[in-house]
């Protein structure tokens, strides 16, 4: 075996991945070549150092994040338990009153805000991302892809619904519990609806604990993906997600250099006050449309409010509906 071929094969040799003949040939070369022996020894050392140092412990919060879903912390903090209990009880009453109506709503197949789905998935994945994330099913992860794509389609379909005035009409606490119960009703039994309506997710009910542990919480649908607008070398973006950091309840516009994608500026067109006692995402009010007219961005939000943003001064004003 030639010296160069030997060097190319050292790594595979180390891993025991070399076919028998090549292995024999390499061994005889090694016996005669101190340079290759030294190199092999160093590669072994590289492997050893990697094995020794490359692993980092997974953060403890990962397990929590995967299994506990993401109920907002204050909601579950101990001093809020009585308030949460009261809210859920009140919500339960509303659900019982509203049950027949729920049936009607299902039949009409109207856009629903509250999705039975894993909030972490919805929250952390922009719609476009979800679409691609599941595009490459293979023999091994076919089930995952299938399941995920049906989820994706469902949430996108309802997320696309336009009019949203009534979405935010009901008291927020009631909405949250309504969504939970609806989820339970759609996937489980009526008993499950009653259970979630009459008891509280904090009382230690094992069925509910399991329910939450499995990650079943009501969440809003993903907001509409708003295409960026490019004009005069500037790209305006109303992304709902990562670009806005943790402030995901909407209203943020960013401008980039269209060529270099350098962030030129970012501004919030409107603020959405967040009640820390409620799940964050159901309170989000995202931008639902974006248009550029003569240097002004015309923006609508999911509540139907309209704004005009001067792209030069970056001042925003509210427009009549």
């Amino acid at each position, binding site marked *: 075996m030639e010296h160069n071929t030997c060097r190319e094969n050292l790594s595979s040799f180390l891993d025991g991945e070399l076919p028998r003949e090549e292995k024999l040939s390499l061994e005889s070369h090694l016996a005669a070549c101190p340079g290759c022996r030294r190199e092999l020894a160093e590669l072994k050392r*590289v492997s050893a150092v*990697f094995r020794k*140092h490359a*692993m*980092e412990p997974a953060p403890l919060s*990962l*397990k929590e994040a*995967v299994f506990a879903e993401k109920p907002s912390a204050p909601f579950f903090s101990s001093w809020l338990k009585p308030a949460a209990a009261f809210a859920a009880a009140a919500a339960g009453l509303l659900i019982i009153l509203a049950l027949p109506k729920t049936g009607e709503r299902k039949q009409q197949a109207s856009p629903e805000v509250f999705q039975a789905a894993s909030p972490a998935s919805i929250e952390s994945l922009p719609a476009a991302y979800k679409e691609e*994330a599941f595009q490459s099913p293979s023999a091994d992860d076919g089930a995952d892809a299938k399941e995920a794509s049906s989820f994706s389609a469902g949430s996108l379909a309802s997320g696309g619904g336009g009019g949203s005035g009534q979405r935010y009409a009901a008291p927020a606490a009631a909405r949250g519990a309504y969504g939970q119960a609806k989820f339970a009703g759609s996937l489980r039994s009526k008993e499950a609806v009653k259970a979630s309506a009459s008891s509280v997710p904090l009382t230690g009910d094992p069925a509910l604990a399991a329910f939450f542990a499995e990650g079943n919480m009501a969440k809003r649908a993903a907001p509409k993906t708003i295409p960026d607008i490019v004009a005069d070398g500037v790209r305006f973006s109303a992304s709902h997600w990562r670009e806005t950091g943790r402030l995901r309840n909407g209203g943020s516009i960013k401008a980039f250099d269209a060529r270099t994608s350098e962030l030129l500026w970012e501004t919030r067109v409107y603020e959405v006050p967040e009640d820390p006692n409620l799940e964050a995402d159901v309170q989000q009010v995202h931008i639902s449309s974006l248009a550029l007219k003569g240097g002004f961005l015309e923006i609508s939000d999911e509540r139907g409010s309209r704004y005009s943003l001067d792209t030069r001064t970056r001042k925003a004003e509210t427009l009549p509906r």
Partner: protein
Amino acid sequence: MDAKELFDKHAAMVYNLALRLSGNAADAQDISQDAFIRAIRGLGGLRDGSIAGTWLYRITMNVWKNRVRSEKRRSFWKTFSLDREKEDENDQNALQIASPEPPADAAIEERDEKEALEKALAALDPEDRAILVLREIDGRSYEEIAGITEIPLGTVKSRISRSREALRQKMGSLLKDNGT
């Protein structure tokens, strides 16, 4: 295999794959979380529990790939800390990954070794780092790695060889000093 078992068995590998792919702890956690949530959703359809690891690591790779694609589309590469052209940031990053505790005398050598490794790793392609994790830590065969990363077998072989050679070059003096 239930979801908890899947998590307990593979969390460390998934996280470290994600860490080597993304190059920072925050993204690694996000990727791991997304990967597990996807995997747990599809767990019922997994017929053969013995391939759960392979399947889960592939999901992790896909979650990362999709993130990169999505970030690229928004041209947010700059804010990502693992741009290969940005040596300085990579160096800082390597230090971030390194242990923050001040070492005792006896541990200085170990710390240097780890820092040297992190610096050398920072210059590798993210996928190459992940391949090394699969090979060195999880002991996966080249064929399994090809399956997980969806990279041809021959390429896996040459990439492992190339990565090790790069690490050997960068950590040269350290390897010689310590002898073998």
